[in-house]
């Protein structure tokens, strides 16, 4: 019986609570007064404040991809332009979105869960409800919308910086001339690739922020519960991010 409870009842309850929370959030979308000001604050926290770490990680990822591509593939039989055709699609299709997602799962997801968890255990959320404010509309909707809007922006920045970093290391490191890098990238470039990356980042933004909000909103157990919720938010965001990545790749590519 405990096994059934662990394997079936509790996951079903979690899915149900998550779905109801999202339902309430979507139901309050029209009530912009409750989150209009808060959404820009969250966009700054989620988007602008995450930009330096995302750009840093993307630049190094692009650079490392270039060096590894040169190390593994460049030979007299393979043109050096192959580096460009590996680095650019890698950043656009996978690294730009997934790298940003992992960084934000740790940075933004943990922050959201910690914020909401603390508000829950200190009964601030109950106070909001007591004052007649819609806590879901006031706390969750702006965070989820900020993630949905700002993740694509961060994805664009990550892809741009990553490709630039890869290009710079390739050229200044003597691995590939700029012209060949660009020629290789153009040879295999497909217009749907950046669109696919945007769709992924949008889905990742929604996944990370909504899971983190769920974990924080339903935090129990005081300070220890906040810590547990924060960890679970970061871990579960990463897990579902990978699941969503596979799902999107299978369905859209």
């Amino acid at each position, binding site marked *: 019986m405990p096994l059934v409870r662990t394997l079936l009842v509790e996951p079903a309850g979690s899915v149900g609570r998550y779905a109801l929370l999202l339902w309430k959030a979507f139901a309050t979308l029209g009530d912009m007064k409750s989150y209009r000001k808060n959404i820009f604050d969250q966009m700054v926290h989620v988007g*602008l404040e995450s930009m330096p770490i995302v750009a840093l990680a993307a630049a190094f990822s692009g650079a490392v991809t270039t060096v590894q591509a040169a190390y593994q593939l460049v030979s007299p039989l393979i043109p050096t332009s192959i580096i460009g055709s590996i680095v*650019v699609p890698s950043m656009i299709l996978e690294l730009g979105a997934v790298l940003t997602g992992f960084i934000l799962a740790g940075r933004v997801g943990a922050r959201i869960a910690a914020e909401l968890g603390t508000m829950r255990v200190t009964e601030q959320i109950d106070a909001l409800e007591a004052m007649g404010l819609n806590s879901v509309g006031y706390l969750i909707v702006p965070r989820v919308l900020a993630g949905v809007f*700002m993740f694509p922006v961060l994805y*664009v920045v990550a*892809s741009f910086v990553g490709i630039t970093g890869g290009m710079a290391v390739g050229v200044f490191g003597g691995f590939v001339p700029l012209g060949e890098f660009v020629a290789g990238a153009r*040879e295999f*470039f*497909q217009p*749907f690739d*950046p669109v696919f990356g945007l769709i992924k980042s949008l889905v990742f933004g929604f996944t990370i922020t909504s899971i983190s909000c769920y974990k924080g909103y339903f935090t129990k157990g005081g300070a220890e519960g906040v810590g547990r919720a924060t960890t679970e938010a970061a871990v579960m965001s990463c897990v579902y991010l990978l699941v969503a990545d596979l799902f999107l790749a299978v369905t859209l590519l």
Partner: protein
Amino acid sequence: MKYSNEIKVGATIIIATVIFILGVRYFEDLPLFRGTHQLETELSNAAGLIPGNVVRVNGVVVGSVDAVRINPQTNGVRVGFHVDSGLPIPEGSRTMVSGFDALGVVRLDIALGPADNPRIPEGGFVEGRVTTDLVAELTDRAPLLFDQVDEIVGNVNAVLGDSRVLLGSDSDLQGALLSARRSMTTMDNLLRTQQANIASAIENVNGASGSFNTFMEGNADSLAAAVSGLNATMAQLESTLDGLDGTTAAIDELLGKLNRGEGTLGLLLNDETMYHRTDSLLTSLQALIDDFQVNPGKYLKEMRLVDLF
């Protein structure tokens, strides 16, 4: 100066959007700040063409493919693409797929029509050339190619086998080479041992050559006279040969007449009538003589002996 969160967020989104659009156009090899011209074409076979493949004119990338779909009305492949609006595509232009699908480098090439022709308008249609799928063609021809390759490999093996036999340690070629090497060694030894004799022989030849030169210088006049006489003799001989040629021609003509049965002698040789008449005469004469011997009285009864003698 402190900016509000709205301005920060708005500026960030605008900048990201601009980077995205310009980045996509850059990697599509399109002009960053110029429009594009939308066109369509229809091909018999897409040959691996997909959206995003480049469009080229004379090897220069001028646009990219937007859509590839089957046209249910014609069962052809309808391809939508755009090119740089600064490049006019004149009427009479043709499209065709080039490149190799297996390498992922399929392209749509445009062969431009006459430059004087009017430009194909936005959304216009460009005729497509009949194209074939290179991979399918290779697949169709593969069995024949494999047979030929097998045959070639078999021949190469046979040649290699023969070569091995030819070059083997007990082969004729090896024996010939050994024999040649032995001969060369013998010749070398001979030359070494007979070096003095050979030098002497060469000196003798040189001496004989010098004597001959001396003789030639001393008897130059006599030799000139002898050559002059020889020339005169040769001229006479030439004249004689000319006469002989004329005689031969006359004989040829005579023989020709004889062969053609012209003249008495020709008729005698070629006409069988005289032979037959002579033969008939001799037969009759033989019969007369026989009859005379059997019955001499028949011819002599009216003659008296006195008359006879």
